[in-house]
């Protein structure tokens, strides 16, 4: 995979951290997964098919949920977009500095993987909206899919199918809870869930 594609994936990931609207973020993570699927098609048709099906299934599911749980106004993140972007980039740089070479085909790919994981964790940690936290997980998984595609000997299709199934299952369960939280509090906002602080 060339450097430009990796930068495109990273840019899409950073955009998920800063955008306000859930539907835009869903579009971004879906686009990211489709870019991965297209780039995988050169090496493994089965792997590309798994990524494409996962991207379309998750994108459809998340957009459906967005339309079923319309918020009167976007849930505020509590941290400004520029600060979130700064945190995400700082975390990504720290990971790249801390973690030595991990054996992927290029150091660029390794940096891209670590950046996407850092962005995913930052999105889940700094966004209050439940669906943004789910998209943080999807971002991480997209980073891991990039890592699998950049393995020197190629990855196992069986494992890729398993990971895709697990992620879809977790997303389905998250959607069930998102709808329950929305029904209970009138918003998919984790700030409403503050009863369990020690």
């Amino acid at each position, binding site marked *: 995979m060339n450097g430009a594609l990796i930068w495109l994936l990273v840019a899409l990931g950073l955009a998920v951290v800063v955008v306000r609207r859930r539907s835009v973020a869903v579009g971004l993570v879906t686009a990211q997964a489709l870019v991965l699927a297209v780039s995988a098609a050169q090496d493994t048709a089965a792997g590309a098919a798994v990524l494409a099906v996962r991207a379309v299934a998750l994108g459809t599911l998340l957009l459906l949920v967005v339309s079923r749980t319309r918020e009167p106004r976007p849930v505020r993140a509590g941290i400004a977009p520029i600060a979130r972007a700064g945190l995400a980039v700082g975390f990504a740089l720290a990971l790249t500095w801390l973690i030595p070479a*991990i054996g992927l085909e290029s150091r660029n790919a390794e940096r891209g993987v670590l950046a996407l994981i850092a962005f995913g964790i930052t999105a889940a940690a700094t966004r209050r909206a439940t669906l943004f936290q789910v998209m943080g997980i999807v971002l991480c998984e997209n980073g891991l899919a990039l890592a699998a595609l950049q393995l*020197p000997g190629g990855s*196992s299709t069986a*494992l890729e199918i398993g990971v895709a199934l*697990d992620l879809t299952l977790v997303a389905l369960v998250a959607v*069930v809870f998102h709808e329950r*939280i929305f029904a*209970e509090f009138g918003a998919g906002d984790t700030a409403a869930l503050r009863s*369990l602080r020690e």
Partner: protein
Amino acid sequence: MSSRELLALLVVAAPALAAAATVVAPRRVVHVVATVGALASAAAAGALATVALASPGSPLVERWLVVDAAAGLLVAVIGVVGLTAVLVSPAYLAASPHGIVRAERRPRTFYGLVFCFWAILTAIPLVGNLGGAWLLVEATTAASALLVGFGGKPRALEAAWKYLILTTLGLGVALLGIVVLAAGSPYGGLDALSWRALEHVHAGHALIAYLLLLAGLASKIGWAPVHNWLPDAHSEAPAPVSAMLSAALLPTVMLVAWRSSQALTPVIGDSAARSVLVGFGLVSLAVAVPFLWQAMPWKRLLAYSSLEHMGVIALGIGFGTPLALAGVAVHIVGHALAKALGFYAATPLLGHEPRAAGHAARGIGRTDGRLASVLGVSLGALAGLPPSPLFASEVLIVAGGFAAGRPWSAAIAAALLSLGFLGLAHALLETIAGKAHVRDRAAPPGRRGVVILASIAVPCLLSLTVAAVWLPGSAIARALVRGIG
């Protein structure tokens, strides 16, 4: 197909079939179907455990399947906890009529999810591949998160949400570790991740992969400092589910960490592999102990006790001597029995004293002696009050630490365990003999069941204490030290 392979298939298939049977069963017989399914699943687990533990020196290790002493131990624990969880579930379902599904669907959905969770959980100790183990661990998250939030109350929803998000993110980090291992392996595809292939991973990649893997798994095991979901999920889940999470899920995921440590030790070195586990163990103990000194609701107290006990088990695995690993085996079984009993007792406790949902239970012995005796057995055993098997196992683990040449770690662990004991002993006294509120003296729902379970658990716990004396020199302890190598 050999008898062990057949048993391994049966032990996973039985709860999976029971899940399907409970989902399609007519409403009036769903409890009966669940009980029959649980008995069959537990019988299969018992048979496999007997076979695995009877000949610990000759484990079955294949590309996809491992049947060894550790797997036998965990399968037995999952079987016992699964069976008892199903047996006490009618009382929970009767006492808590509301939830995330409609009333008429509650029992079927609940049992279906419990058996799905059980089947996936049982497969984890038996899988012969790290990649397969990761997939199964991740799959437990989906089933168990639905069970954690099953009550449908806001606090249960929050606990389930935290559990889902934090453990999934953690397992993502673990998956990165697995990808790094695959990158450094001379083999391709899934074969790169079979337990025996891991010792051939490139040394330059192995340590960072091991650290990522353990850091990720720690979030699921509930090791500090990534344990934030644990107290909430264990205290807000239905009591039978709390028992399965604490007594079965946590040690089962810990087995994946244990196997990874043993498989990677030839590459990263004994000291590095063990130090990480000892570190997690000491931090978990240090974080748990202050909470054990606080007055808190019964299930929350048990949840923090889980954090302490997962720390103890991590220490034992980290020390890695026959003494310590014999202690680990006793600790896993003793903790499962005592903790499951404690969580099951929560249903009658809340019926007897509804304030116990949000406050520390006090003076139960003054108003309900039978219930107090069950709470006392559970908390006394968990505290490590002699003759609890957990006292014996903690002594073995600390002694194993000294034998492993880690006197400072063992001494710190002994000090923290003593402090934890004092905290839980104080909670035990307050729960049994503290100042009592005015309460309804009628028998609360589910009390009879937990009293029967306690009367079975007490001789089992005492037998385990006796076994702790014999275990260190046994073939089982030697097999645990050797692992699957």
